[in-house]
């Protein structure tokens, strides 16, 4: 077998490259140690015993019997069984103050304020368990919870405020979908409903009652946000639908369906027919187009935005709009007739009038919806049709037409798709139905992952045979079953996890455990985690007193009539903001500089797991950037305004940054450092009245750059 064949397992096919299918026929699985036992699979010949764990039906395991010392919390019993089996002794429970800071960042992505710290400490003194439970409830009820957990979902759905075409057109309406996600988490929308709305919200919206008409339409932003390529409307559309299908598979099922675009999936029971069955569903769906190359000479305006009004309300507005367009067109043809027969002296005036009407027409058509009709970057059904298999993923080489449907090997029977509909609703029903174990498993694993830094399955968007095995398969199924039994309540899973002793373990080291399980796969401690990009920025703004906790309005894009973006003059902007990072304008063609620096999401593809890098540009930014000076200076001003006493300011700073009291030594050393700084400043040209703030700015920059600020014990 050639290297080329060995390495080309499946994937992204360049236009014109025809070698993949040939390579495919020679393939065998990769031979690294994690996957050495993986063999090619023929879904037709599997017996239940041989089925890959993730494709088996959900079991509902009973928590195992373990030593009484580990209590009776079901999660603890599953985890403790692993400890007992391997001879591990868990480390001690973390202190209330460590748990408090961990809870705040885990649930709302913000540090506790000094008042919140004091309130918790007081409550904790009276009844620690009650105080802890109360804090969980308080944070789950916070509107900032949805901003934190909505962002996790935005990673999965590759959220951006631009289209990704060659000019990276802005999509002002995208933020409606962002807000929908945040609201869904805050209201603890049942996850099955959340899935159904994102796939088929427009269809659900038309069913009675119509209470959530607009939200459900907006929800299909999940599909609408599929990556656009090239310049013209719907150009390279098969690649956009590849992104749709790939994101659909990885987000909801934890399956890498993309492989099946060009050949049968090498490891998982997914056929090329399955891929084009899904393709048919999405190809029967009308996606919006955000515009392109809008220069004066060449206009490709927005189109197919989804109306947020019901047909009855929209009809008169559309009629008025159509009439307006018709009136202008008729004025124009009258003028054109005049032009043909008028005096030469009149020609210029008439030409100018015609140009004026053209401009008016362009401006009216530009938003892609009739004037006065609010729209969403969302989808709706168009003429339903099945599609043919594309050989090698090449739309020019087609085979048999396959009926629209889901993945056959994971469906007891074919989807019953009414001929006139895309089938998205049936696909959503299939995904959230009683026979589909992957949907709940994948989501509880994501929740687990964001509480522990790693999922029970370490490859959160790949539950297939080339992904990782679960570290605790029974716990996985227990949680998935609990999830469904609770009515798909995400908040209920948070409660279950956060009340376990396992989650509450400290992050301390232990030599003998380390020797047995150095990777902490069996969770004998809580892994220390660096904050991700958004909490870093939000916490900095929060402690400096400048974070705006309100939800901002639309992004300050230039007015649509001024857009002249082309591939030569792409849309590129970065708006200043003091709002939470989840609200920053997100582009596909370039990343926000701060988020990029601290390992923010990839804005071009679904992100299951953020990396955590420690690179020099981060240190340079913290030490030397003008932005950090502003934040540190704001922080200094806050400390100075809240107290005149140096020790009190230092104590305040420690509470704000680290959610703990400063030690006596830290106060002494801080005091001495500040006095040194002031001493040095005396020999600079800094005016006397500014020196105190300068000294505190230095001190604050240090605290904001420190490991204790960046890491969660």
């Amino acid at each position, binding site marked *: 077998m050639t*290297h080329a*064949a060995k*390495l*080309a*397992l499946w*994937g*992204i096919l*360049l236009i014109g*490259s025809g*070698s993949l299918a040939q390579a495919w026929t020679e393939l065998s699985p*990769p031979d690294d140690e994690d996957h050495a036992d993986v063999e090619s699979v023929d879904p037709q010949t599997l017996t239940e015993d041989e089925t890959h764990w993730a494709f088996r039906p959900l079991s509902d395991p009973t928590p195992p019997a373990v030593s009484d010392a580990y209590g009776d919390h079901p999660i603890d019993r599953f985890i403790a069984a692993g400890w007992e089996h391997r001879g591990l002794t868990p480390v001690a429970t973390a202190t209330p103050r460590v748990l408090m800071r961990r809870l705040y960042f885990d649930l709302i992505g913000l540090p506790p304020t000094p008042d919140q710290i004091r309130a918790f400490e007081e409550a904790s003194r009276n009844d620690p368990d009650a105080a802890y439970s109360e804090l969980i409830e308080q944070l789950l009820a916070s509107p900032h919870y949805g901003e934190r957990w909505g962002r996790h979902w935005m990673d999965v759905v590759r959220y951006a405020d631009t289209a990704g075409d060659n000019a990276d057109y802005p999509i002002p309406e995208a933020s409606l979908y962002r807000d929908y996600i945040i609201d869904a988490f805050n209201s603890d929308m049942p996850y099955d409903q959340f899935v159904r709305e994102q796939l088929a919200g427009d269809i659900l919206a038309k069913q009675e009652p119509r209470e959530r008409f607009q939200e459900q339409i907006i929800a299909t932003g999940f599909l609408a946000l599929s990556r656009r*390529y*090239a*310049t013209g409307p719907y150009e390279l559309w098969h*690649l956009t639908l590849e992104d749709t299908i790939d994101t659909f598979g*990885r987000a909801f099922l934890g399956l*890498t369906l993309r492989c099946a675009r060009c050949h049968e999936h090498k*490891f998982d029971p997914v056929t090329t027919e399955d891929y084009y069955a899904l393709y048919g569903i999405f190809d029967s769906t009308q996606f919006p187009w955000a515009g392109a190359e809008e220069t004066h000479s060449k206009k490709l305006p927005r189109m197919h935005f989804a109306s947020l009004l019901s047909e009855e309300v929209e009809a008169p507005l559309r009629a008025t709009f159509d009439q307006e367009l018709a009136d202008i067109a008729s004025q124009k043809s009258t003028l054109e007739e005049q032009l043909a027969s008028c005096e030469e002296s009149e020609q210029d005036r008439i030409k100018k009038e015609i140009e004026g009407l053209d401009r008016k027409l362009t401006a009216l058509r530009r938003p892609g919806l009739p004037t006065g009709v609010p729209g969403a970057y969302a989808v709706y059904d168009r003429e339903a049709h099945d599609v043919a298999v594309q050989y090698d993923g090449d739309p020019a080489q087609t085979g048999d037409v396959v009926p629209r449907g889901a993945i056959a090997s994971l469906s007891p029977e074919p989807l019953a798709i009414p001929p006139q509909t895309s089938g998205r609703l049936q696909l959503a029903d299939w995904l959230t139905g009683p026979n589909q174990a992957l949907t709940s498993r994948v989501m509880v694993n994501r929740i687990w992952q964001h509480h522990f830094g790693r999922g029970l399955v370490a490859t959160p*968007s*790949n539950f*297939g045979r080339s992904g990782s095995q679960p570290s605790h398969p029974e716990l996985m199924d227990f949680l998935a079953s609990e999830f469904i039994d609770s009515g798909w309540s995400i908040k209920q899973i948070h409660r279950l996890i956060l009340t376990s002793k396992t989650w509450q373990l400290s992050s*301390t*080291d232990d030599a003998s455990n380390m020797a047995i399980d150095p990777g902490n796969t069996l969770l004998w401690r809580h892994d*220390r985690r660096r904050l991700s990009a958004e909490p870093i920025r939000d916490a900095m703004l929060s402690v400096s007193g400048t974070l705006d906790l309100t939800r901002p309005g639309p992004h300050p894009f230039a007015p649509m009539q001024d857009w002249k973006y082309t*591939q*030569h003059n*792409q849309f*590129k902007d970065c708006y200043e903001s003091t709002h939470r990072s989840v609200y920053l304008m997100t582009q596909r*063609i*370039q*990343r926000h500089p701060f988020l990029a620096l601290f*390992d923010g999401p990839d804005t*071009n593809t679904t992100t299951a797991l953020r*990396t955590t890098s*420690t690179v*020099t540009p*981060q*240190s*340079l*930014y913290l*030490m*030397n*950037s003008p932005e950090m000076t502003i934040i540190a200076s704001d922080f200094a001003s806050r400390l100075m305004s809240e107290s005149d006493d140096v020790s009190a300011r230092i104590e305040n700073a420690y509470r704000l940054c680290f959610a703990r009291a400063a030690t006596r*030594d830290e106060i002494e*050393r801080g005091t001495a*450092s500040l006095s*040194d700084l002031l001493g*040095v*400043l005396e*020999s600079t*040209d800094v005016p006397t009245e500014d020196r105190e703030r*300068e000294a505190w700015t*230095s*001190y604050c*920059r*240090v605290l904001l750059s*420190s*490991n*204790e600020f960046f890491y969660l*014990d």
Partner: protein
Amino acid sequence: MSHHTHRRDFLKCSAAGLTAGLLNDRLCVAARAAGGHPLAPRPSHHPAKAKQLVFVFLTGGFSHVDTFDPKPQLAVDHGKTVSAEDLRNITTQPLLKSPFTFRRYGESGLEISELFPHLGTVVDELCIIRSLHTDILEHFQSVLAMHTGSATVPMPSLGSWLSYGLGTLNPNLPPYMVLCEHLPYAGSQVWDCSFLPPEHQGTRIMPGDEPIPNLTTQAKSSTIAELERQMLRDVNEAHAADRAGDPNLRARINSFHTARGMMQVAPQLFDLTQETAATLDLYGIAEADHTSFGWQCLMARRMIEQGVRVVELIDSGASGNWDSHGDMQAHRPMAKRADQPLAALITDLRQRGMLDETLVMICTEFGRTPWDPGPGRNHWHRAFSSLLVGGGVKGGIAHGETDEYGILPVKDAVHVHDYHATILHQLGLDHTQLTYRYAGRDFRLTDVSGEVIHEILA
């Protein structure tokens, strides 16, 4: 607390007391000793001809038949129509002769057009590939393909793959530095590391006053900056003392030391006062110039000297580039800007004995149509030219041929994947073995194809 350096001790130890060279040595030793430094040099797959790469990207698609691929028959048949399938979906088009004259240079007698007289003087160093082809004729996609091998879905850049495969030779500087005044098509995706670990990301260098951001302290004096570093170290050491054994905390403490190293090394990198007047003249750099393409080419040589693994130069952005639709004469100012500095870079590397171990690639995203009503030309992706220089590649040769008009390769066609495979090969890497597992499969720069062009290797 013994692990704290006394807070006043730093006052005796100024930043200047620690020379960059010493720091560099210490870091190299530390990197080797630790073995875990993500950018520590890694062994190549086979003995490398070249240690480092200079990647010159001329944005917009320079025309092959007006630069490095002379087509006398195009002049003879000027205005005659050609018809063939897939001429941008237009079947009949008039041929358009080049408005530029070609002449032979050097011992090899290779022909180059009047646009590049300076490159003519180093023609015997050049390997001109005249049969390159790519898959899509859109700027965005083709720029991405030339950088990542993928014309569609963003993938890791060539520079990131090399950093991942080989590590760096100088931990005080990023392994992959990109001199780029204006964002190209596809934006920062062209130097993105995508799914490769983030330390392999290209670092954009902005020609101008602050080539690397945040190198200068905002503190009101260097003593205060030093005090801040000392305070940070104290705070972090105290924190780490209770959490002994956490390598992530230690790595982050170390990254501030490395940042100090970069603050000392980088300004020296950009300080041209050590360069002779003759060198500055060679590149055509005027006094106080720190933005011109000549300055960028000289910086490339200095970065290579400092051990940066990959230096990329992007000569222009998504507009004001080689995309001469309106008139081929628009190539003149573009060539005038690039010609002398590129020749100077090759000459300078040769004179310093560095060209043998440095591979220089000079390329664009696609060529331009040999047919057109004129006076400009459209995009053409099925044949275009590129240069490889030094790094164990034969000089004074042309590889591959296009037909009599330059429309299609007729001999030794070179796909972008072949081009990349050859570049990796010269740097000691087998393109089929340089892989990274992501989303369930092993990915590589050359996807599932690519053949090393052995004929051009010295």
